[in-house]
């Protein structure tokens, strides 16, 4: 086992990079985004005006992009764990 591997094993053991906490926070944020997405989708179905529909569509696209970034970050953290 080389030095780098030893250091990594130690860091993981003590969770020096706060990976677990980060994962937890990220999952929580993603969950919130998901709930927001569901809420907006429901509101989109009930929207009466074009303006309202357009506004909700944009908000949904923002959430989609944020979730995409979040999921990618979460994926990286999980990969780190499994390596």
């Amino acid at each position, binding site marked *: 086992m080389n030095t780098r591997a030893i250091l990594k094993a130690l860091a993981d053991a003590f969770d020096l990079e*706060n990976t677990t*906490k*980060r994962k937890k*926070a990220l999952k929580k944020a993603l969950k919130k985004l998901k709930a927001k997405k569901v809420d907006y989708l429901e509101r989109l179905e009930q929207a009466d005006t074009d303006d309202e529909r357009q506004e909700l569509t*944009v908000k949904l*696209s*923002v959430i989609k992009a944020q979730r995409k*970034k*979040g999921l990618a970050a979460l994926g990286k953290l999980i990969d780190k764990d499994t390596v």
Partner: protein
Amino acid sequence: MLHRFILPIIFALLIYGFWISPDFKEIAAGVSIFLFGMLSLEQGFRAFTGGALEKMLKKTTDKQWKSLVFGIVSTTIMQSSSLVSVLTISFLSAGLIWLNSGIGIILGANIGTTTGAWLVAGFGLKVKISAYAMPMLVFAIILVFQKSKNLKGMGYVLAGLGFLFLGIHHMKEGFEAFKETIDLAAYAMPGIGGLIVFTLIGMFATVVMQSSHATLVLIITALAAGQITYENALALAIGANIGTTITAILGAMSANYQGKRLAAAHLIFNVTTGAIAIVFINQMIFAVDVVSANVGIADDDYTLKLAVFHTIFNVVGVAVMYPFIERLVLFLQKLFPKPAKKTASPRYINDAAFDFPETLLESVRSETLHLYDNAVEIIAHGLNLHRRTVYSEAKLKPLIKNQRSVIDFNLDEIYATKVKMLYGAILDFLARAQMALPPDFSDDLYELRGACHGIVRSTKEIAQFEENVSLYMQSDNKYIRKEYDAMRLQIARLLRQIERLRDTPEDDRDLLSLDDFRMDFERKNIVTNGTMDDLIRNNYITANMATSLMNDIGFLHNVVWNLTSMAKAVFATRSQEDQEVNEILALTEDDLDEIAEDTAT
């Protein structure tokens, strides 16, 4: 309560006065034109601040004796001490000269004005300044419309002088009726009683006629006709000298505290000089006889002797007052203190927090919000909206549509007193705090510094936007009106959202929702979404309008970015992990461009 009724009462009294007396109407119009002239003069002189006039004035008034000479020479040339005192008040109010210099000029003007008595007594010459008013105004207006700052300034100065002359002319015309009723012979009396009564008459006549020259003509005529005694004439001249200060007092009404100080100095000087002349009247008469005999004035040539008296008592007055100028300045500074500006001072930051990093960070966060609150006054007014409207629960779209009247507010003053001062204090504090804080906190502090900078930048951007929004929200062109209303709406919504975030408990704050505003702005950007091209192509808006729109979209883009960043920094959660997550999820400008493209297609 009382304030609400004062203006209607004044208006009612004026209307009644105009109705019953055409003379009163003329006098009131004269006073108004005169005051308007003062304002115009001040504005004109402001244009030269830092320029040639300032240099010239500074050079000619940098020493007390120079100011005195300046006053003597300028009054001799202009033949009106009132005009010189009014001009000096304008110089002072515009910050071109200091109070000491101003008082020097006023003292000089009192000596300079005695040359008028010599001219009146010797040659019967009187310069009728009102004759120059009309041509002056014509030239002035042409100059005011010029682009050059100096020419514009000259235009305002000329217009100011024109209006001053015109105002004095109308006041004189209005008082003609009173002049007819002044029969000096009716009051002729000997002794000290006569001295005091005639001093008061001289004062009253000068106040009424707005010219000590006119009073002098009246005195000389009455003296020559034997209506009054020589002593009575001297007392009238003393009274005229005091009465002439009314012009300066009128001028100071529209001037700032400096102008008021100078008008008070003028009054104090002339009243003191008058008092000295009254107390030592016999010595003065003796001195006049001696001087007259030496310069070859006949013993019975009372008109020229009156001119000698006028000169002697003014020179004596200057000689007595000159050493006390410094004390007079101190007294006037106490009497008319510089009004304290309502400046915003820090509420939360305090050096005592240096030992407690968490507290310090929290105090900076609160102070940033304080700065933001002050800036919102500018931002909301810049959108032509009131803060209470923005923060209300009412729907913004109809509110914006209905709010078309321009809100009158002094953006520069609010910026200088409420934003700039506070920002300076925060920066100063942050610079010192950075040295005291452990390195772990420096990132947060850096973020908050950026937030403050963003707030200040936003007020600057809004200042640029405000001019066009005032213009175009009232435009007949519905297309440009719509675009500006849309921009007003976007910023108003953002302000409302920031306020909501503030009221939301920390754990429930959805900072990621701020990206919606950025996205919304990108998506509705008419430059990138092709709407602008359509508007131009179809001639719905002019090229000028298009340029304004493009610039303002740029300004507001920065406002949206700055304010959302500010909110993210100030409302950030205290949990390190949550902060990191928010940073990960927040959309960059590239992300937003990409989504905008996707949603457009």
